Structure formats: structure tokens, C-alpha cells
């Protein structure tokens, strides 16, 4: 296992703007020209997947200057979490990245568990993996459907949302919620896996490869799609690393890096999957990485199912009464359980003093949680390393000599979720 940057067909040197890395300045010779038109793109525009504002300088059809303005969706999650007890905090990270919610939930729960030095049952780990991979497919389907829609492939959107609907139904079956499930609890899972989940999930796993073939049939030999994505929005591997890119955007630039394989968490070292890497760093390769990842995630889900089906009756949450709520039925018979229940619900559990940074591979890349505890029942400071935030830093570099029509394709291909960017 070693990280290799495979030979790329991108550009030589660097394209990161020299003055400010995230702002593409209008070239000197055009600065006083009357041919340059400054256009405000957004903040409300259907192709920005949220409220992203781009200030674009156009010279004819060519983009000669661009600056991204973010913050329209800033809701102060980090500040709000400081005044909530840990178990109430779990609902916040999901709403940060509202497309990859299970993964964000996971990273916060993992950080708290690491500070508590809490051992999580095996079944919970496998179920977390399963849901995170389903969530990855869900997130990539939203990416694929919407970004194809923006480039004119309307039917893709309906196909993608057909499969997405099935995944949301599976989430509803397990957790009672279609989105923002809050199923991961500190110590394991909130509830046992319900009966009937496994056969339904199997049906989906059998179906998904065929759906992927359908998508490929629609797009891979579609002349318009290829023309609009190949060689557009190129980002070299070197620039991607310098700009801190992660996840599919990094792998599409030829950098072989995936935290699930290179820094395994949960039980990822026990499953068999491949990390797709493509060399060109353009919009088309970002699309191909995500397509391959959906196939790999389906494989992981199948392996998780194989394990989980044999684990019926095993515990799904740690047996640690100072942290985990006691089973409901015990409240009728045990005074001590009642006290524990009351203390955890009202005051919350206390987490030992310390600071920690935990990172997982979310659908958009490295999603990290930096958590500082002062030993009390509320976090002292929570910070999320948002992959979308970092992805948008690359817009200026990717839009080097791009046409205005390609701007839509490029911004869509970076797959930024504005809730994740602004937090």
C-alpha cells in the first residue's frame, strides 16, 4: 500500500492563482478593457446546488476572472453545539452535510467515542458501515442526477432519483426517517436492526448493478455528455494536493488516496473493495470515479449484509450505563436504571477532558471532526472539516480559460453541498 500519483495528462506546473489561491484575477492586459463584463452568478441559481455566489468576469464567452462567495447558509452549527449535551448534538452534524448525513453523524459519534474510550459492539460497526455506504450511493446519485440535468440529460435525473427513493425507503425502514436519521448513538446504534430489512436491502443490492449499467448506457457513449465533460475543468494531482482536495475530486486527479483503505476505521480493513483512480482530473473523470464508487459501495453493502445476517441477537449498543440509555423495559423494574436514564437525559454524560481530530471518508472526501472536551457534559468546541468547503477553493484553479457554459459543469462536478460549506 503506497500512495502513487499516476501519470496524468493534465498540465505542467501549477495553475493556482498567484495572488490569492481562491480568486482568479482578470489578466493585466484586460483589466481596463471595456470588453470584460462582470456577471453575478447566484446566490440563488438551480445549478449551484444551494446558495453559492460566483462573481464572474467574462471576456466574450471566456471566464477570465472568478471569485466564489460563500456563507449564505451559515447557521452557526458549531456555536449551537457548544450549548447542547453530547447526545443532543448528534442531530447537528447530519444537517451540516444534508446529502451525506450518515457519514457526518458517524464522524461526530466516533470522536466522542474516542474521547470516552468506549468499545462499540461489532454488529453496530458493521451496520454503520452498511448505512454509510448506502448513503454514499445516495449522495453520488444526487450528484449524478443533478449535474447531468444541468448539462441537459433530463432523463438521468429521473433514473437516479428512482434508485435514491429505494435507498431512502431502506433508511426509513431502519430508522423511521428518510433523511437526518439520527440512528448512530454514542456507543452503537439507537435501535436494533428491524426485521425485514435484510431481504429488502438484498433486493436493492441485486438491482443496483443493473441500474448502473443503465446510467452508463445513457451517458458513456453520449456524444453531448462527452463533449461537455472531457477536458473541462482540469485540475492536476499536484494542485489538488496543494489545494487540500479530498475524496472523489482528488482521485479523479490521479492521486490514489482513500481513507477507508489507507486509514481504516470501523471494519473497512475486513471488506474487499477497489479504490477507483483516474488520471485526467477533468469533469468526466470526476463523474467516472463516482460511478465506480457506487459499484464498489454496492459490493461493500453486500459484504456487510453477509456478516450482519449472522449476527442476529447480538448487542447493538455498548453496555455502559454511564453513557448509554438503559433498555426501556428495565425502567419498570430497576431503580438504578431509572436514575441512569434520568441523569443521561437531563444532565447528559460527561466526556473526559481532551482534544481529538477524527476523519472519515464521506461521499465528498475527508470529513473531519475536531472536538475539545473540558470534562463536562457539553462539548467545549466542535469544528467540522468540511470537504465541500475545501472543494470550492479549487473553483478558481479549475476555471482556467474555461467557457461560461463549462462553469456550470465544473461547479457541479466538484460536488459541493452548501450546507457543508457554510455550516
Amino acid at each position, binding site marked *: *500500500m*503506497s*500512495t502513487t500519483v499516476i501519470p496524468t495528462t493534465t498540465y505542467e506546473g501549477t495553475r*493556482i492563482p498567484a*495572488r*490569492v*489561491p*481562491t*480568486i482568479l484575477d482578470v489578466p493585466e492586459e484586460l483589466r481596463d478593457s471595456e470588453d470584460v463584463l462582470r456577471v453575478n452568478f447566484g446566490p440563488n441559481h438551480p445549478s449551484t446546488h444551494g446558495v453559492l455566489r460566483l462573481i464572474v468576469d467574462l471576456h466574450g464567452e471566456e471566464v477570465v476572472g472568478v471569485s466564489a462567495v*460563500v*456563507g449564505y447558509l*451559515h447557521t*452557526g452549527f*458549531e*456555536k*449551537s453545539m457548544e*450549548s447542547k449535551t453530547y447526545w443532543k448534538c448528534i442531530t447537528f452534524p447530519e444537517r451540516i452535510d444534508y446529502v451525506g448525513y450518515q457519514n457526518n453523524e458517524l464522524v461526530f459519534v466516533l470522536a466522542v467515542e*474516542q474521547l470516552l*474510550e468506549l468499545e462499540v459492539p461489532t454488529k453496530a460497526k458493521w451496520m454503520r458501515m452498511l448505512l454509510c455506504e448506502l448513503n454514499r450511493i445516495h449522495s453520488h446519485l444526487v450528484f449524478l442526477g443533478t449535474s447531468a440535468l444541468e448539462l441537459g440529460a433530463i432523463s438521468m435525473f429521473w433514473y437516479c432519483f428512482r434508485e435514491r427513493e429505494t435507498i431512502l425507503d431502506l433508511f426509513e425502514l431502519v430508522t423511521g426517517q428518510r433523511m437526518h436519521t439520527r440512528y448512530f448513538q454514542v456507543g452503537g446504534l439507537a435501535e436494533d436492526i428491524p426485521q425485514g430489512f435484510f431481504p429488502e436491502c438484498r433486493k436493492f443490492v441485486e438491482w443496483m448493478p443493473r441500474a448502473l449499467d443503465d446510467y452508463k448506457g445513457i451517458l458513456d457513449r453520449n456524444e453531448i455528455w462527452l463533449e461537455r465533460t472531457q477536458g473541462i475543468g482540469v485540475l492536476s494531482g499536484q494542485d489538488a*494536493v*496543494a*489545494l*487540500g482536495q479530498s475524496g472523489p475530486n482528488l482521485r479523479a486527479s490521479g*492521486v490514489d*488516496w482513500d*481513507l477507508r483503505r*489507507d*486509514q481504516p*476505521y470501523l471494519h473497512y480493513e475486513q471488506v474487499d473493495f477497489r479504490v477507483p483512480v483516474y488520471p485526467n482530473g477533468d469533469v468526466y473523470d470526476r463523474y467516472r470515479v463516482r460511478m465506480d464508487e457506487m459499484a464498489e459501495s454496492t459490493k461493500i453493502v453486500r459484504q456487510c449484509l453477509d456478516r450482519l445476517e449472522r449476527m442476529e441477537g447480538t448487542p447493538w449498543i455498548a453496555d*455502559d*450505563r*454511564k453513557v448509554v440509555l438503559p433498555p426501556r423495559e428495565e425502567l419498570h423494574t430497576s431503580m*438504578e436504571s431509572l436514575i441512569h436514564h434520568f441523569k443521561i437525559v437531563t444532565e447528559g454524560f*460527561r*466526556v*473526559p*477532558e481532551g*482534544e481529538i*481530530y*477524527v*476523519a472519515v471518508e464521506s461521499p465528498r472526501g*475527508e470529513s*473531519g471532526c*475536531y472536538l*475539545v472536551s*473540558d*470534562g*463536562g*457534559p*457539553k462539548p*467545549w*468546541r466542535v*469544528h467540522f*472539516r468540511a470537504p465541500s*468547503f*475545501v472543494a*470550492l*477553493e479549487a473553483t478558481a484553479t479549475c476555471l482556467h480559460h474555461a467557457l461560461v457554459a463549462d462553469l456550470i459543469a465544473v461547479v457541479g462536478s466538484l460536488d459541493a453541498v452548501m450546507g457543508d460549506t*457554510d*455550516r
Partner: protein
Amino acid sequence: MTEWPRLPGYVSHRDGPEMPTVTIETARIREACEQARDELGFDMCVDVVATDRIREACEHARDELGFDMCVDIVATDYLGWGDKGVAGYIGTSSGRDLMHPMTQGLQVLPGLKSKRFSISYHLLALRAGAPRARFQCWVDEGEHVPSVISVWPTCDWHEREQFDLMGIVFDGHPNLERLLMPEDWEGHPLRKDYPIGGEPVRFSDEQ
């Protein structure tokens, strides 16, 4: 607010001990990073770096130690750390022992910090074992930090975000403006002395 019992020898963070600082000449950074390389997983070494040498340390980490990527910069406000009644972990004197219910034990107060803000730089090396390191420098109100944007261009927005929400000034940043909050916003929301609910609600009865 009721005063909570303190352990003997408790002093407030304001008159706490000096933070230990290492400079990049010492072997400690190298050792600590090698340790991180050996350890697989989430463990990260923390290196407290003298504030004025942070850029030098980052360059050293990138060029000599191979930390290709800065994944995150985050500032923390320690105003009031350990002062509140809720702070401190209740455990037994020998540490946390959950097998003994009803044990309340001693209150363990958090370790003291000598300055108000910490700025943590989370670094990642893209090679086998995924070694990670964390540099940390400490500043008080009004002190500045050198920008590391020349080392890693990705730090542009990270530094702007910390300036915006925490009010840390990064010297040498070419475009240090507010990022998430509106340009004309007053105050830095993630500071501990910035109240929750301080923003007046429009069209409420009070207006």
C-alpha cells in the same frame, strides 16, 4: 452561580503555567512525527510551536517530513476554561471505572491553559499508514499569527474562516476578509464571550 469545590492547588487559567514551546531545531518534532508514522489510526501527536515560527515549522513539515496536505486549521477559545460549574469530569481517583456504579469519586478539573486561543493545524501525509500531525500555537487577544498560505494554498479559506468566527489575525494573508458572516458584521461569533441569542429577532414584539 454556585462555586464548585476545587481540588487543592487549583489556580485559574489566567495565572496558569507557561505553555511549553518547542522550536523546530529540537529533535522533538521529528521524533513525534515518526511516532505518528508508526501508529496507524487516528492518534495524532500534538506539537506546540512558538507562534512566530509556525510558518517555518510548516515548511519543515512539508519539505522534510512529507506532510503534503494541511487538512484543517481550527482555533479554540479557552476563555473561562475550567471556571464553570459544569467543567470537570467526575470519575474515580484511579481514572474512569464504570464497573463500580454509584461511584462519584473526585472531580477532575481540566488542565490549565496559559493563553486564550489555540490554533491547531492538522496535517496529513499521503503515504502508507496515513501519518497525521497537529501543530498548535497559542495566542492571547491582540496577538497575530503568521499566515501559512505560502506553504499550503488551501489555508486561504481556513484562515479566513478562523479570522471571521474567532477573530484571529493572520499576518501576511493577502485577502483577510470575513468569509461566512456578512462583511459588516460586528464581533466574532465563536468566541466564548459572544452570547447565544444576542442577535435581535426581526418583527418580534420587542421591535
